[in-house]
């Protein structure tokens, strides 16, 4: 099993954080994992992305030319990476920020208004965690509760409120997945 995942959006949306959580969750399940950020001038206030590979075998290159899964948080990332999704792959898009639908029939597309859901809960910065809940529920890549604890436990115990908020955001994504 090998999953090649690209997460992409604006700097500040928690793209790199989300990728790290996926990689760390895989590492704790004894998978081989790599996490590679885009680095360079494009990160300064612009778009940002990271590549995460999870595999039960050796990982040759951390660079992904054709992802199995794209998690997109803005239209630029959608335009850049959607055409590159491998046939049979999956698209996860934040429909609050992406108003396009792919014309490809060889991929499965999932939409969630993650930013809107997070805003409604007064958790503006947590659209990424809403998305992760939705993503895990739809793909079953990890056990839902296990991955929830990966997110909450990675936050310091002294920040109990933050842990609770992240948990809530995650649950909102999971419930949305059950509805659509």
């Amino acid at each position: 099993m090998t999953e090649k995942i690209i997460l992409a959006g604006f700097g500040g949306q928690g793209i790199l954080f989300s990728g790290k959580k996926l990689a760390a969750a895989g590492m704790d399940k004894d998978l081989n994992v790599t996490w590679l950020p885009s680095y360079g001038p494009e990160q300064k206030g612009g778009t940002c992305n990271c590549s995460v590979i999870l595999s039960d075998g050796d990982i040759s290159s951390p660079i992904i030319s054709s992802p199995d899964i794209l998690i997109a948080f803005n239209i630029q990332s959608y335009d850049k990476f959607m055409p590159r999704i491998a046939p049979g792959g999956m698209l996860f898009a934040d429909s609050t920020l992406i108003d396009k639908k792919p014309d490809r029939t060889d991929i499965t597309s999932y939409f969630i208004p993650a930013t809107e859901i997070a805003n409604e809960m007064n958790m503006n910065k947590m659209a990424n965690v809403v998305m992760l809940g939705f993503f895990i529920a739809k793909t079953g890549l990890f056990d839902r509760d296990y991955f929830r604890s990966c997110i909450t436990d990675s936050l310091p115990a002294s920040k109990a409120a933050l842990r609770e908020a992240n948990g809530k955001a995650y649950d909102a994504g999971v419930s949305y997945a059950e509805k659509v």
Partner: protein
Amino acid sequence: MSKVLIKGNEAVAEAAIRSGCRYYFGYPITPQTEIAEYMAKTMPKVGGLCLQAESEVAAINMVYGAAASGVRVMTSSSSPGISLKSEGVSYIVGCDLPCVILNVQRGGPGLGGIQPSQSDYYQATKALGHGDMHLFVLAPSSVQEMASLTSDAFTVADKYRMPVLLLADGALGQMMEPVDFDKISFSNPPEKPWAANGHGGARKKNIITSLYLKPEELEDTVLKRAEKYKLVEENEVRYEEYLCGDADIIIVSFGITARISKSAVNEARKNGIKAGLLRPITLSPFPSKKLRQLADTASAFLSVELNMGQMVNDVRLATECKKPVYFYGRTGGSMPSSEDVYEQILAINGGMKK
């Protein structure tokens, strides 16, 4: 502690500190700045010093001074910054001082780009400074190795009193992978009776210099150093051999491209082509003896590099041109896929590649 998910750059910094390195001098440059960041955060906690110098030249000369005083010390940079350090590196070699230097390579020449590259192979293995000199050059190919080879680098540097260069690239520096520090053995800094440090007049003074105005004296130091290099070549050559025993086509590749090549080898094996991989871990000294042996059993070699063909010439020398040696590479920050490398294997196998 079991495995931690950590960037290659951070793995080097953490491993250096665990190796007893207490002095870091550097100057920021992408894609290796996380090292300075990690050192700045961690060194004060362990009683060490992290100093951002005014330039790369200043940083390497601070390393020069610290190494002369007998402490474990390192610097790091990326390609253009490494070029700036080369004068200081030569002085350090001329004084037979141990230190560790990391080059997280980016594309060149000039300012070039900031994406991964292996285009400093010649500089690293042939002439990272003027004079009759070599460095001991280690090429990690995973984040785990970024850490473990850092430990080896300090050990070898002290054992032979020579600078050790870790030759990595932007991908290895920037990517995160699990690292198990418990699996790495770290050596303690040895006694250094030659060091120029304070002794309260208790012994004769130690003089550390690279200046010898009498030709016979200078020749003597160079000859002694050449003896040392011979010893290093006998004892310290490292490589990873993968399915080479019965291989017809052997890929020679180091660092990040060795991983990509390994996938291509697996693909070839699946399709009935006997391919193998020889991954040099020491680039200087080069695993020439091993390659010479393999030239008797293999029918062709393919050097895969992130440059226009540099190590390929060392492969030709090592195999004494007994078998054809082909080259495949990308440069400027581009990275081949394992499919690209597999196509090269197919072409060689079909006798199509020129």
